[in-house]
């Protein structure tokens, strides 16, 4: 693992990206961002983040498709994805598709941080994805 764990945030709302970035940097993460699903997939392959925080309603490629594509790729197949979305109705679908956690917007910063932390810990411990 790198010195600073890397988080990729995929969200088309620049202010949400900014807010998450400020929060995660303060908590010691290296943060990179993508504004749509396709870019998210590209950046995931290119930068190999430790965790991906993903919105669902995204331009070019929606978050669930991006999630499936990321997990279909050998290089990123075990990268944990935390979904951060305002569509709570997509919860079970996202979890079925392999999202590690589903957090509702508006989110609680503490919950987001602990979701990221524990999905990395599970990854290190080699927890099987359901």
């Amino acid at each position, binding site marked *: 693992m790198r010195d600073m764990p890397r988080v990729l945030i995929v969200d088309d709302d620049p202010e949400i990206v900014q807010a998450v970035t400020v929060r995660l940097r303060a908590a010691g993460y290296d943060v990179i961002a993508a504004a749509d699903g396709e870019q998210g997939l590209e950046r995931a392959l290119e930068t190999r983040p430790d965790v991906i925080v993903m919105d669902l309603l995204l331009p070019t490629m929606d978050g669930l498709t991006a999630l499936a594509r990321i997990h279909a790729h050998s290089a990123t197949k075990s990268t944990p994805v935390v979904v951060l979305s*305002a569509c709570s109705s997509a919860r079970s679908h996202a979890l079925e598709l392999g999202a590690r956690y589903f957090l509702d917007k*508006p989110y609680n910063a503490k919950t987001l941080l602990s979701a990221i932390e524990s999905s990395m810990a599970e990854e290190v411990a080699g927890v099987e994805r359901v």
Partner: protein
Amino acid sequence: MTAEPMTILAVDDDQGDAELLRRNLEQIPGIDLDFMHVPTVVEAEAALSRVGVDLAFVDYQLGTGTGLDLLRSIRASGDLRPVICLTGQGDEHVATDVLRAGADDYLIKSEVTPEKLRRSIETSTAQSKQRRLEEQNKYLLEELKVKNEALEKSSRHLAEMYETAHRFVDDVSHEFRTPLTVIKEFTSIVHDGLAGELKAEQHEYLGIVLNRVDDLSALIDDMLDISKLEAGLFGVRRKVCRVADIIEHIHTTLERKAASRKTTLDIDLPDDLPAVFCDPEKVGRVIINLTVNAYKFSEDRGDVRLSVRHDPAAAQVVFAVTDHGAGIHPDSVGNLFERFTQIGKVERTAVKGFGLGLNIAKELVHLNLGDISVESKVGQGSTFSFTVPTAEPPRLIARYLQRVRAFREDAAFVSLVTARVAPTLQSETHDDIEQFIQQHIRRGDLVFRTHPNVWLLVLTSNRRDIDASLRRIHEAWAEENLNRPVAPLPAVEFDTRGTWALTDGTKEFIEQFQMECGPKELSLA
């Protein structure tokens, strides 16, 4: 023969034949005859359209055109009156033609007698009446069809509007959440000192903003829940569960919300409570809604208390949330659980935001076959209580029937159906199956797990025949498996044990239910 006066039209180009017919007719006993004679098709048509003719005799051989043409033109105009065709000797072969063209009967002129005429008039009139009835029925059917189509159209329209309204709530809630996320997180970043050090006062004020943002997002959740409750989309998963587990599950939330309101929650939970039958998540929601309300009420006025007790006489567990707040005026108690109720008078200034939470609580309690109530004294505080049935099948089913009778006007019959899968399957598969069944029955119906691999379904319906409902579940089962290529749901066998009318058959129903379920308490899954 009929005593009513009868107008008969004879269409015959032979004056003598017409006269002979008149004489024969006049000899029918009891006839009150009004006889008219016309020699041509044109005059016949004019007479039929003008005068109140009850029956026509048409000669097959007419000078200009045949009786057949006249018949056809009569029937083509929609005229259903009785017509008898007269034919000369040797014209018998035309009988089929004239009957097909719409004549009610045909007579050979030379064989006509008053008795034959009487019989022919009688059958022809009867046939004509029958025709008229059929025509009327056809018309009524057509009208019904049109009305039905109109109804279907407006019902479709309503359904669409309903659907649009719900989608609107969904969309709006999504649109609200995104800016709220930005507001909440930036406030929270500043509040947490990530953008520079804050004075204590600034920190406190931002804390207030954050609390209100949480209230607003809870309100959005409530709006969505109401929308789902109304649409019947709020799935219920009632099962046997422990009260301690329900409270344990929401404990952190309760504590956090208490801390943010600067109050504490005192929980009184006896350890000998019986198992209850409910959807634990929904009961948790009710407890949260009631305690959050209580926190709001009791600012600076002491703790909030959540107590649970067993009420064996009514086979239920009673949850009570008590605050020491301003209390509610007796006049306001009645419609407290209705949507968008605001408390009037003095108390209103003390407490706001009462609306949706209590209405949702009431709906969720009813979904779990319980009741909700409030006791309050102005200046002393309030206690909101709700009940949840214990997991005792006979008592539970009696409560259920009472509910169905009181609230479900559409339910006339109750059926018992067992659903059975192979006993060797893994328990996760059983859970999947149970969840599936719960999702696909109506939310007013019940499912009990009587054995690890057997469920007992209590289904209500407005029809005695529940095959359609079962077929729907079967179809959904197949459809579900299309989406589960990896771990398909195993084959399930539904067996209808009986159907009883809710009006008089419930004794037998309860007996059968007890036989299927066993007399003892249902066990925890």
